[in-house]
């Protein structure tokens, strides 16, 4: 497949090169269409969000009220903090104008006059790259007031985060832009009704928005034929962990996971077997190596396998991996990142970490296994935002699919203690 999001074109981050390769033509084309036609095109294309939830993008856009006296906002989510996810950074670095063009088209389609691109604070270097590209777009009259003489105006502002995973959650992201702590909001009301400063707001992921120019250029029908019919388009898959060639790979949706691991990422070092795979960033349920056959990188296939596409951050673990250490580290992460608003998550993530660390250090008990499950079950679905679920899923799936590992660990620990007693 021709690479659309991250083509190999040299210096594509420069506005001249981007325009020489057809850049900003989609935006010009969109400006000649009615806003509803643009939204309709995106809706029919079948594009689904690339930030984790796979929600249909065009449908989300239609939630924005047409008649309103309030200003409308777009937030482009570049907080990218899910462990195993490192794709949006590639767009900031190698194709920032595609993101800017997509943002402009989205603003036009929804009648938005200000867009905030929220980028995690750690990406300081990439924020500067994006800001440089944005300054060039402004200079060419592609953003700002009365764009290209059409009378359409929109501002794009890059907003720098300050180190909080939770700000990738859309309502926490809005609070963060408002200068608050990154606390998720109770929904409803949904952002399209009551978002930034109480105004209608849409939040889309960086990669999602970067698909929009291609849909406008080539039409929804063309886009809908790329990859899996129900989850079409190109997707950036980040492969990390035990592979020979870790990195971000662009491919159509629906590529088998085993092909991604072996063909794209060069297989497992030492030709070792695969014990486990986390397919879409740390919160997605873990899969056993043996169950990977036939599982593909699209929403339906992943769901059928009992996991999720998430952010398509694939983490591969070879046969020698200590999964309890991995899970303890994931639990530590969610404990650290819990914002503390909801008791089940604030307390539960700490308990999960404590018990798993105990397991890791050789003090785990048989009853701990069920206790971990019980805590995870009591977090899931009982919190304001999905961070609680994200903390629960890895624990639930790891115990469900690798209970043998936990039990083996308990038995291993038992032997010396029993010998001592004898």
């Amino acid at each position, binding site marked *: 497949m021709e690479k659309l999001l991250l083509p190999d074109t040299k210096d594509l981050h420069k506005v001249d090169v981007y325009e020489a390769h057809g850049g900003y033509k989609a935006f010009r084309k969109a400006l000649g269409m009615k806003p509803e036609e643009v939204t309709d095109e995106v809706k029919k294309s079948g594009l689904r969000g690339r930030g984790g939830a796979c929600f249909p993008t065009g449908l989300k856009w239609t939630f924005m009220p047409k008649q309103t006296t309030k*200003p409308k906002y777009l937030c482009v989510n570049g907080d*990218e*903090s*899910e*462990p*195993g*996810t*490192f794709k*949006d*950074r590639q767009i900031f670095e190698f194709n920032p104008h595609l993101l800017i063009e997509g943002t402009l088209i989205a603003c036009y389609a929804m009648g938005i006059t*200000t867009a905030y691109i929220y980028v*995690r*604070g*750690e*990406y*300081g*270097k990439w924020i500067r790259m994006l800001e440089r590209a944005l300054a060039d777009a402004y200079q060419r009259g592609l953003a700002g007031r009365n764009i290209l003489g059409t009378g359409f105006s929109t*501002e794009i*502002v890059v*907003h*720098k*985060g*300050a*180190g*909080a*995973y939770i700000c990738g959650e859309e309502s926490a992201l809005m609070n*963060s*832009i*408002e*200068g*608050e*702590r*990154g606390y998720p909001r109770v929904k409803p009301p949904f952002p399209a009704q009551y978002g930034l*400063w109480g105004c209608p707001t849409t939040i889309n992921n960086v990669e999602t928005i970067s698909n929009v120019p291609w849909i406008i250029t080539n039409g929804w029908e063309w886009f809908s034929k790329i990859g899996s019919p129900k989850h079409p388009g190109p997707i950036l898959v*980040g*492969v*990390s*962990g*035990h592979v020979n060639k*870790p*990195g*971000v790979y662009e491919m159509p949706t629906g590529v088998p996971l085993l092909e991604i691991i072996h063909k794209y990422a060069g297989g497992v070092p030492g030709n070792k077997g695969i014990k486990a795979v*986390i397919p879409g960033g*740390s919160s997605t349920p873990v899969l056993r190596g043996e169950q990977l056959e036939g599982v593909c990188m699209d929403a339906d296939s992943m769901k059928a396998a009992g996991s999720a596409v998430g952010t398509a*951050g694939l*983490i591969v*673990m070879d046969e020698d*991996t200590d999964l309890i*250490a*991995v899970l303890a*580290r*994931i639990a530590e*992460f969610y404990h*650290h*990142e819990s*914002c503390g608003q909801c008791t089940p998550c604030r307390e539960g993530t700490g308990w999960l970490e404590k018990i798993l660390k105990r397991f890791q250090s050789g003090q785990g008990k048989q009853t701990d296994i069920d206790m971990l499950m019980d805590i995870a079950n009591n977090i899931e679905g009982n919190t304001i935002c999905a961070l609680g679920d994200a903390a629960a899923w890895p624990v639930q799936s790891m115990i469900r699919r690798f209970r043998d590992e936990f039990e083996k660990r308990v038995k291993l620990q038992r032997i010396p203690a029993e010998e001592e007693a004898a």
Partner: protein
Amino acid sequence: MFSPENLKRVEELRQHYPHSQALVLPVLWLAQEQFGSISTETMRYVADLLRVPFSHILGVVTFYTMFHQKPTGKHHIEVCTNISCMLRGSGILLQYLEQKLGIKPGETTADGEWTISEVECMGACGGAPMCAVGEEYHENLTTEKLDRVLAGLEKH
């Protein structure tokens, strides 16, 4: 007190947001860049500048991990130990760094040169294990490569 450039920057920022509270994060970034860290006096200054309660600023500063209330060393080395890095040996790197500099994560060397922090995923999983020094990412690290990074920084 902000430098004239930063005061100008604050005025520019006001154009981008409908409410001055939204300037809290960008202005705290400016403050940290100018002063190296965000002290209580700085927080009071920002609170006055933006007409936001001091308690609100304190709440924000303590919520976000990248805002520091105490100065870090001249070189702040942040080692990611999250899963992708962990699977590729970040534990060894961190241990090596602790021994080499004689400090634990969260500590600064007595001469004020080095600070080590253990951090969550930095979004460089394809180049694991990694560390960041300031805004610069150093990826695919080995202990030898880390030695070279440190030697390069020592010169500055």
